[in-house]
């Protein structure tokens, strides 16, 4: 266990600078964006009321009140989230390939450490999970702060204050990243983490079998996707609508556990017997 934690700490330290940059970009972009987007709205209000002579009620009737939704749809808010997603997606591959192709072939040292090789696999996965959950947690902190900024900027009459739940519900990207219940969290992030395990194992297949390994990795990915959707396909072919929604949920969770376990097991085998340095 201590070796595993050491490896997690090590992997985190390797990425922490870029991670802090992502955090910084998110905070700055969203806070600055909250100010700028609300100022743009107020500029429209002032122009309409003081220059064009529109009444306050007419303006609100025509253009609506300002809410977090208006800010949430702007690039200031969505941009850093998209950037973080892209960076982390790339890092899922990079976390392995840097060990082979960086200046020093670090994988030599990792695989010769006096610890189970599976710890290398699990520590990389844990690092990815921690960083994803950490960024989403940051967003959970930022949303109420940004709401308060909007409250300071826009007068009450022109404002429609939304609760955190309403903001999450109205902004589609938030409803995926911030599940409203623990079961939804398990499902959404379970699928995400399962995908990470699948990609890791595909990478190890490529590292084990080189060119053939690329094909094997692709086939493995296709196989696991097929396995995940298999219960749904069987249901629609044999007896459509047989399972209730709650049962489909638990079947999906079971498939996530099975596929993740399969990926970890195969990854362990490859690290132990096939991956060569």
């Amino acid at each position: 266990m201590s070796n595993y934690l050491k490896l997690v700490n090590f992997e985190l330290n390797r990425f922490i600078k870029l991670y802090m940059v992502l955090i910084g970009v998110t905070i700055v972009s969203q806070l600055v964006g909250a100010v700028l987007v609300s100022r743009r709205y107020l500029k429209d209000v002032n122009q309409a009321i003081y220059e064009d002579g529109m009444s306050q009620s007419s303006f609100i009737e025509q253009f609506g009140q300002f809410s977090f939704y208006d800010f949430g749809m702007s690039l200031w808010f969505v941009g850093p989230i998209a950037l973080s997603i892209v960076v982390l997606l790339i890092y899922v591959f990079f976390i392995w390939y840097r060990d082979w192709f960086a200046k020093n072939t670090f994988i030599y040292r990792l695989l010769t450490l006096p610890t189970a090789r599976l710890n290398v696999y699990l520590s990389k996965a844990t690092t990815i999970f921690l960083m994803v959950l950490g960024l989403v947690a940051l967003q959970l902190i930022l949303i109420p702060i940004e709401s308060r900024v909007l409250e300071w900027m826009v007068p009450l009459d022109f404002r429609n204050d939304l609760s955190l739940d309403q903001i999450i519900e109205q902004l589609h990207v938030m409803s995926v990243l911030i599940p409203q219940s623990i079961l939804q969290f398990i499902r959404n992030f379970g699928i995400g983490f399962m995908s990470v395990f699948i990609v890791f194992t595909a990478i190890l297949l490529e590292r084990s079998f080189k060119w053939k390994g690329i094909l094997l990795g692709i086939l493995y990915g296709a196989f696991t996707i097929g396995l995940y959707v298999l219960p749904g396909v069987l249901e629609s072919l044999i007896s459509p609508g047989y399972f209730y929604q709650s049962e489909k949920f638990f079947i999906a969770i079971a498939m996530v556990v099975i596929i993740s376990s399969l990926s970890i097991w195969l990854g362990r085998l490859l690290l132990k017997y096939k991956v060569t340095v």
Partner: protein
Amino acid sequence: MKRYYKLISLSLFTIVVWAGFFIPSIPASGNQPEFVIKTQDDQKELGHHLVVSGDYSDNDNISKFLTISEEGSDYFSDRSYLSQKEMLYANPGAEQLIKDYRNFMRGKGYDLKSFYQDDTTLAYVEIDSDINFRGYESINPSFQVDVLDKETKDRTTFELKLTKNSNFDYGDILFVQLKENELQVVASLSSFDHEKGIDSEEYHLFAIDVENQELINDELILENEENITESQSEWQSLDVISAETGENDQNYIVFMKSVQEAESLPNGEERIFMKDSEFIAYNLESKKQSKLDIPEEIQPEDYDDSLHLEGNNLYFSKLKNNELDMSSYDISEQTIASEQTFSTPERDTEESTYYGIEHGYLIIAGRYITNESDASIIIYDPKSAEKIYDGEISADDKMKAVKGELAIHDITFTVGLNEY
């Protein structure tokens, strides 16, 4: 430990924030008011079975669906994630069937018109078909029949090909009844002729022998055609009036053929009113149809005017001048059986009055509840005009704090009322 401060900080921050998010201090319904049905002491039996469905909205103009009973409010948003996924909040009948007969209900649709239930049997009929490559035509249509003996738990499941009437685009089950091992099924079969632009609809009565698993009769009751390529301000409509799915034998199905016209109102909304209507009753026992001679004064004027079939009686209801006029027409005798007038809540207008007939009871209620007013619920026996229930829906103090509004969509009874 110092070496691990980044890992520890990130882990702690993540756990604390997520835990704080998921450990609810306030339920999802947040500051939404609580509603409750208040019943007088001597009316508890009836009040206990009442369920009100509606939408609550306040400053954010977002509607929140909820049901209200004597126990209080049940907001959809407060239900568990899995309960919300089942999407049965608006269909308590189907929800109860799933609770009582979970395996039987697998793969079934939730439209209660496809079900028949009595003390010993639960039956389900559906029209199933493949869709052709053009995406709108049904091919190889068949009846899917499933009958459950409640006592022995035996199931009879079979499929019957619809060979005689197989050229239709869409089939819909409107009524199912089981009588002495014979299923009587009323279904509409619709088709659209793309070349001529004609929309056709046929209403059939099918008889299915459950024991021998065969289709023994297929009778065309009524048909309707409409050319939709011609521009028109009025159109013909054919609607079926049958009793709600229940445990009582039904003798009649009533069809309403009407010519409808849309009228634009000053507020920009559209009102559909009926220029002409004709009622045809089909006797399920004798298999004979008869045109009902409904006096003009009780015929519906608006499409929203309520019609209800209960046994041999067809009820016509109209709201006018803070009064509900209800006439019942005896189909077998072909006469008006009764005419009653019921008063509606004092301050309510036609638009703000809810009324309906459930399990043979007439329910009248105020449709809207605001921070200034509660809504009364009054229940009458339509045959005797006796008031048998007088209650109200009231809100807690949170309602006074916000400019919210509860709009009532439906008032029904929970299961078990048949024993009352």
